[in-house]
């Protein structure tokens, strides 16, 4: 037992030295490793985009924009200068817009009812909402096609005069709204989960009925969640290829057009449009950041002004 006091200090010193060395490595990693790693990760993410932007200024030697020929503004001067490309892009935008609006409205209502009401079929709905996300897109596309084509066979064709779901923009829309609803429900539901219900009670306490409470309190508070869901829906729709390919018939969206054209050519216009989408998206994010920052700065300034005003008022009061 007498050895313990002699051994213990030695151990302590060793331990401390090890800890010191570990700390040094950790600090060095924090100073150099983390920024380097971050830069590498960002670079990795940016390479394809940089390539896309660069090749939008390319004049390729052949029909495929794979090899660098020489710098050219030709594609930028005529971004829709390919047969049906402009139409396809327009269809993409229309489908994305309508499916976003419809899916966001419906999905928000579903999320609201799922989070705040107990009703028969609630857990079933929770499950069904998840299914479109869990099912492989190609399976979903194939079964949608089966369904739409099925409605074009007897007896449905005669019964409806063939007006039921001919493939085209309307079937793309139905499909996109279907999968977008799932993503909207999941996004808005996450936002609703921690929703402070007592704020709604406070509104009702102050004389607001259910309708006013929703528009004055609930909606403004979940609006960021709804906007996020809408953005997600828009980008999923404009991006979608597999399901659209099955449900579009002879109609083309931008991704479907690219896929169709890539068999015999790959024009730089594709890179131009890709770059445009990228610039618009980055611009929106930047705008949002600037507006948020400005609003916060204004709130802070008001608080400071009022605090200063209150101090002055207090000094002015004669004791």
């Amino acid at each position, binding site marked *: 037992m007498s050895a313990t006091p002699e051994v213990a200090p030695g151990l302590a010193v060793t331990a401390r030295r090890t800890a010191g060395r570990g700390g040094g490595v950790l600090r060095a990693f924090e100073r150099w490793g983390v920024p380097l790693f971050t830069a590498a990760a960002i670079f990795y993410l940016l390479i394809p985009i940089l390539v896309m932007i660069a090749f939008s200024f390319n004049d390729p030697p052949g029909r495929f924009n794979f090899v660098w020929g020489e710098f050219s503004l030709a594609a930028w001067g005529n971004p829709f200068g390919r047969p049906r490309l402009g139409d396809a892009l327009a269809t993409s935008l229309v489908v994305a817009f309508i499916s976003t609006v419809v899916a966001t409205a419906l999905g928000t209502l579903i999320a609201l009812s799922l989070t705040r009401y107990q009703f028969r079929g609630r857990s079933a709905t929770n499950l069904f909402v998840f299914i479109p996300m869990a099912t492989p897109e190609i399976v979903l596309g194939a079964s949608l096609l089966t369904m739409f084509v099925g409605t074009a066979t007897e007896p449905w064709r005669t019964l409806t005069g063939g007006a039921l779901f001919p493939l085209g923009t309307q079937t793309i829309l139905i499909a996109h709204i279907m999968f977008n609803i799932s993503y909207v429900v999941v996004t808005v539901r996450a936002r609703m989960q921690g929703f*402070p219900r*007592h*704020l709604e*009670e*406070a*509104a*009702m*306490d*102050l*004389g*607001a*009925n259910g309708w*006013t409470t929703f528009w*004055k*309190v609930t909606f*403004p*508070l979940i609006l960021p969640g709804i906007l996020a869901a809408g953005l997600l829906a828009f980008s999923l729709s404009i991006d979608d290829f597999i399901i659209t390919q099955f449900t579009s018939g002879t109609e083309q969206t931008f991704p479907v057009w690219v896929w169709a054209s890539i068999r015999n050519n790959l024009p730089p216009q594709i890179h131009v449009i890709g770059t445009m989408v990228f610039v618009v998206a980055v611009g929106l994010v930047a705008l949002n950041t600037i507006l948020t920052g400005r609003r916060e700065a204004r*709130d*802070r300034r*008001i*608080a400071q002004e*009022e605090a200063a*005003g*209150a101090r002055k*008022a207090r000094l002015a009061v004669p004791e």
Partner: protein
Amino acid sequence: MPAVDVRLLEVVKRFGDMVAVDRLTLDIQDGEFFSLLGPSGCGKTTTLRMIGGFEEPTSGLIELQGEDVTWLPPFKRNVNTVFQNYALFPHLTIYDNVAFGLRRKGVKDAEVKRRVTEMLELVELPGFERRKPTQISGGQAQRVALARALINRPAVLLLDEPLGALDLKLRKQMQVELKRIQQEVGITFIYVTHDQEEAMTMSDRIAVMNQGHIEQLGDPESLYERPSTRFVAGFLGISNLLPGAVEGTDGSYATVRMADTSSVRAPSALVGSHADVSIGVRPEKIRLREPADRTPDGHNQITGVVRDASYLGVSTQYVVEARGGARLTVYEQNVERTTRAELWAPGEEVLLTWSPDHSFVVVDQPTPAVDGSTPA
């Protein structure tokens, strides 16, 4: 006699099998500062939420100024609430928060402005109009919540542990403030708290709740001086309880004999017709004397041994073991003895004496709720 503002009649609230509020009957007078006091989970919040309209009673009746409001939604009741966590709208400025109720009633903008300004002055927050709730302190948020409720001039203001989140100093300050504001506006306050000192400081009357029912209702003094159940005696301050059997009555006092054969007396009106009771006495009502000293005429006396003494500054707290083994807490003001450095020491034999008028009576088996626990 002031009018009854809020009336609860046989109100029951069940959550599944759990009875949160059990046949509560209560009359609250107009302009009263009324507190619901009780430990956590005893049903205070549920009671308040039923008055506010956020919960529907399982059975029973709730009246507001004579009108049956049992099934009315919150926005149709002339009642406002100060929520425990304030529940300020984070997306609105302080001004818009306070103006929220008036705007729902369609009050004109100029009038809204005048009244919001006036209200923020009442709660001493002028000049905070354009701030957001995230930019003010807890104490200030508390005042905004109060202003937001009071501006509607409700018949009744409900407050659910409104000071619970504040630190002690601020809480004390706000207690005084709340009482001042209540007297200034003359609105009935129903105040929920688990803090007995807070309830005692502010209330005109207090209902002590336990497991969904009211144990005892009265003004702070009568609750403290004459608790009628073991629960109330223990929840409000410290009590010494001595179980015994009623032996007889000589006019206004009854004699109760304890297990160790010593006897004490208590007002016979409190004892009633019960056979087994506990005699209670508050620690500061007991005098400690030398065993040889003379007990004042008619006072209760029991002998004991000092087991513990703690000097608290303003007073000294003793634990004295009575002959029968019961341990009594005694507070002695540090008036004479300390200047002569003569605190009682552990092991010393002492005589505990108190006036029989300071005895209260606790009946262990509560008589069924027929209003007759103390027949004359």
